[in-house]
């Protein structure tokens, strides 16, 4: 029987060595991306890009007690249980696999960008050169062949773990108990109330502080508008026989408007 998998990033253990970023690029044959200039910061890219599916964010922070922290967090697709991107995809190009990996079928993707707009975590990016939406695919092909995702395998700090969702939940809870000795607000992100709005995620975090400290949404939701889209707009579009490219251009505007309401 197929099992549901999860990845865990322990923010307290991460050293921001960024091996996971190179591992991701190597496995996915992605080119280097110099879109963010160096202006005196360690973080390599301002955000995810269509060439960078996995990013370590690095932020210097001094807390209210004057204590210094250097926060590192691994940003990539959250692999939601109830993925807004999948629900809103007009081409049915996005699917959630049994493992929990949410993947884009490039054969079907037309690069409309709805997934970008709908994602509560702001993850997918449309590659302007190929007109395809891109994001972390949890190395689903490696999983299928018995290998763990390349980022988790290479991690030098044992900060990225991968296994069944039960194993990762147990590991996360154990780690949180340890982290709580120094950080009483430590919490698990990905399972439980915080991410209920997306049905939970297969990307989980041990966070020493509340999610917003690391730029994670406190209450991400798969937008209600998606149901409108899925149940009303999309069938109309299909019935009307609107060609993909032309129809989508118009629908994009609608989706943008809906997206805005959500912010």
């Amino acid at each position, binding site marked *: 029987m197929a099992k549901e998998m999860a990845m865990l990033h322990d923010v307290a253990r991460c050293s921001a060595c960024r091996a996971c970023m190179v591992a991701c690029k190597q496995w996915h044959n992605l080119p280097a991306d110099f879109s963010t200039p160096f202006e005196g910061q360690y973080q390599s890219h301002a955000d995810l890009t269509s060439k960078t599916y996995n990013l370590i964010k690095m932020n210097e922070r001094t807390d209210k007690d004057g204590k210094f922290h250097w926060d590192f967090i691994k940003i990539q697709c959250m692999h939601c249980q109830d993925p807004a991107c999948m629900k809103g995809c007009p081409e049915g190009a996005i699917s959630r696999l049994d493992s929990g990996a949410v993947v884009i079928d490039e054969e079907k993707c037309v690069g409309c960008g709805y997934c970008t707009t709908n994602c509560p975590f702001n993850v997918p990016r449309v590659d302007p050169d190929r007109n395809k939406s891109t994001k972390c695919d949890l190395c689903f*092909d490696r*999983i299928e062949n018995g290998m763990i995702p390349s980022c988790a*395998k290479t*991690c030098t700090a044992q900060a990225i773990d991968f296994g069944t969702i039960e194993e990762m939940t147990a590991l996360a809870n154990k780690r949180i108990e340890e982290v709580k000795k120094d950080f009483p607000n430590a919490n698990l992100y990905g399972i439980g109330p915080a991410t209920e709005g997306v049905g939970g995620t297969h990307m989980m975090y041990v966070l020493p502080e509340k999610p917003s400290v690391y730029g994670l949404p406190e209450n991400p939701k798969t937008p209600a508008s998606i149901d409108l889209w899925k149940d009303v707009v999309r069938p109309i579009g299909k019935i009307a026989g609107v060609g993909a490219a032309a129809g989508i251009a118009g629908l994009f505007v609608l989706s943008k408007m809906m997206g805005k309401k959500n912010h």
Partner: protein
Amino acid sequence: MDLSRRSFLKATGLGSLGLALSNLGFDIPKAKAEIMKEFKLTGAKEFTTTCHFCACGCGQIGYVKEGKLIQLEGAADCPVNRGGLCSKGLGYSHIPNSAERVKTPLYRAPGSDHWEEISWEEAIDKAARAIKKARDENWIDTETINGEQVKVQRTDAIGLIGGSQVNNEECYQLVKMTRALGMMSIDNQTRVCHANTPPAMSAAFGRGAMTNPWYDLKNTKLAWIEGSNLAECHPMGLKNLMNAKKNGLKIMHVDVRYTRTSKIADYFIQIRPGTDIAFLGAIINYVIQNKKYDERYIRLHTNGFCLIRPDFGFDDGIFTGYNEKTRKYNMESWGYQLDANGKPMRSENIDDPNTVMSKLKQHYSRYTFEKVSEITGASVEEIKMAAELYCSVKPAVFMYALGMTQHTIGVENIRCFTVLQLLRGNIGIPGGGIDAMRGQPNVQASTDYGIMFQYFPGYLPFPTEKTNTLAKWTHANGTFRAKFLINLLKAWFGDAATKENDYCFGLLPIRNTSQNDSIYVQFEKAIEGKMKCIYFAGQNPMVSNPNLGMVHRGLCHLDTVIYQDLFVNETAAFWQRPDNPEGSDEFLKPADIKTEVIFLPACSYLEREGTMTNSMRMIQWRMAGPDKVGDSKPDYEICDMLWRRIRELYANSTDPKDQPIKLLTWNYPKEHMVEHIMREVNGYDLSTGHLLNGIGEIKDDGTTNSGMWIYAGIMRDGGVHMAKRRGQEDNGDMGIYPNYGWVWPDNIHLLYNRASCDENGNPFDPDKKIVWWNAATNMWEGYDRPDVGSLNAAPSTPAGQKPFRMNGEGLGRIFAAAYSDVENGETRDHSSTPVDGPIPEFYEPVESPTKNALHDNPNAQFSPCVIYPRMPDLQKIGTKEDFPYVLCSSSLAEHWCGGTITRNVPWLNELVKEPFIEIPKKLADKLGIKSGDKVKVRSVRAEIEEKAMVTDRIKPLMINGEEVFVTWQPYNWGFTGLSKGASGNYITIDALDPNAQSQEFKACLIDIRKA
């Protein structure tokens, strides 16, 4: 030997080891068929190798399709990394596919402004002729040394730089050919990084190497990281530590700034660059004053109760025996009180005024928390917390790298660790030790093989004017080591080496002890016109040396540069340098530079086979994977071609000076060349041809040979290469893995493990036992190979009570006394003593923002043994009036050393795009500098421009009552490669440690202003 399918599965992680989902006991989730593309690895050929950056020595598995490398990952069965790899290790996968690789030999004619492509035959012929010309025209047959005429038969006009970037077999070829040519100026990357480690560690323990294996870290309770950024620079040190966290490990990080390592540490303390001896001196003082030492261990296993001569002393910053004129010590008074047999006398009373412990107590009583706080900038509370933490747990390990070594007091920095660990009984035990994390992939071996002017392979001292016959050499270095020298000479000169002719000892060049022949001096000699030709094998001093203006000037004075590497880098292309940060008035255009440059394109490690030795002395086999790039060749093949051509050029000579070239054994077959070379390194019985199974089988009567005694046992009869082993057994679960690869010496993983047992051979801690004496079998036994001279040496005999058997005394040396062990009137073995003191004393860096707070003596502001400047016109000392800020330089996670490789990997360049300088926020505010602003950074040597990174990770420090600002820069850039930028090393200082001539990278003075 091909690896079996089963081995490959293990390395991939799909076999019986972790990292495979199929191991988890459930079905692998299946993707929807229509989404699944063709799997990337389907149909690929697998190979295993070892990573090529730091000396962690991570196992790798590569995948090749149609001769091209398509994927490179960590090998899951390698106990060092268990599938992990850092950004650099992964990024190397770009290199076999890089368009920038040099595909054919190149030549740059004197004064020319371009490269031209030439054939291999032409390139090798040009290189061989250049070497011959420099040698023949600059031969020194005799020399007057200290008023005496000495036959020295050498040349100082040819240099070799490199070795840590090539495999073991290639190191051996390089050292063999250069010494046969009579060369003395041979040096490798260790000079720039860890040359200070062996003198420090061997002064205490008898060997110069990291004491415990990486995977022994799981046994430790406290990891004290000082002078290392291991999360960035030794990432598998980090991985092994993170694994130990589940056992309650605590991590202390002491450094000059908060780094990615500080982030994962439990405690972080910032100290001023160059003040480690003061900081650790306070801890030594605390241990002694509060009797936190392990008295039983000290009594049994160290010289703590030995009596030092009453005339030993220390006054006003200077030990007894100092000669102000030569800036050298006479070490005589640093010796023991000896008994009638010449052995050290002991007291039963630790408080006897002449015991080592009493001397120590007196010496460090000056290192109070308050005084040390003023020197280091750490608060009294922080120092006290650190001292209490260190004494609260056992075992504890010290982990360090270049933050400790790259100082003019580098050896004594490291000596502090050795003193503390001996006091606390932390050496030779699981979870203890001192992890000297070596920097280059094969720097352990290039040091083992003696690509250093003062050594022969296996740490045998090179003959000098004082040891210029076999008898004199033996008298100075002991009969123990003479045996190994004889075996080396048998390996090198074959049948020509006989007992009657002292095994051709008389053919060897003789080193002049008044000369320093290090990498720095090679360029200085070039400027003086004495050095004519330098052969570089994978080292980029035009980025990685300090005071780069000197390096450039030196290169421009040479007749010939022979450069062997993958890419044209700054050293190969020095004549194309676009800038002039030191403000030179010469050599401004290619036409001014008359040096010819011969570029020999080498294969990357992925494209050739051989072995490498990592930081824990483990030797691992590398298979060849992807096809060679263009017409590039393996280094072993290039060395072979070069030597054969040199030999041809001398074929008709009858000149006695050319005899070593003609007699040198060198007939390695083309097929399996590296294995034939390793056979010679290992050694064999000359009559039967049987390979030696270990050091114990080496004979002193000329019936065996062994190119390097410490590797004896790596190859066995029947084609067994121990470095190829991938066994996963770990009896006792102590983190030894005795059947994975092979560790020198004699597969001993945890050095000095005899010290984990008491006088009867019983482990101090039965729950963490590693070796023990078995009275029933009358043998030393263990999960690791016991570190004893003979497995039958019972604890009831003197030979069974030598936990530090490579020291003359057989004991750990808290006080590095001057001592030679004499047996039957002949020196048996000699202990080593640092030239700048038997115990560490704090001195300021040569460029310092403050006065030495411990003494007023002007000879003791910085180390009284440092001689700087060596060339006053080109080496100046900046003062705090002109250069008020302290600069520390090092590498970072994404770029590495001279950057020849990493700056050609786009995936690394996108992570760190250009050089920068970290500036404390308060200083930046004062200077009106914001993050991202371009700034001019100036020292007395040069000025460069880079961007500012304004940060809270470096705090201003209060030093002796004044506020001091510390800054930091990565130094890895230059004008070639895909990522170009200012070389930070134009501004750093080339003052050297007096022991091992490592440079003071870690502290110099600068000024900063907005560009």
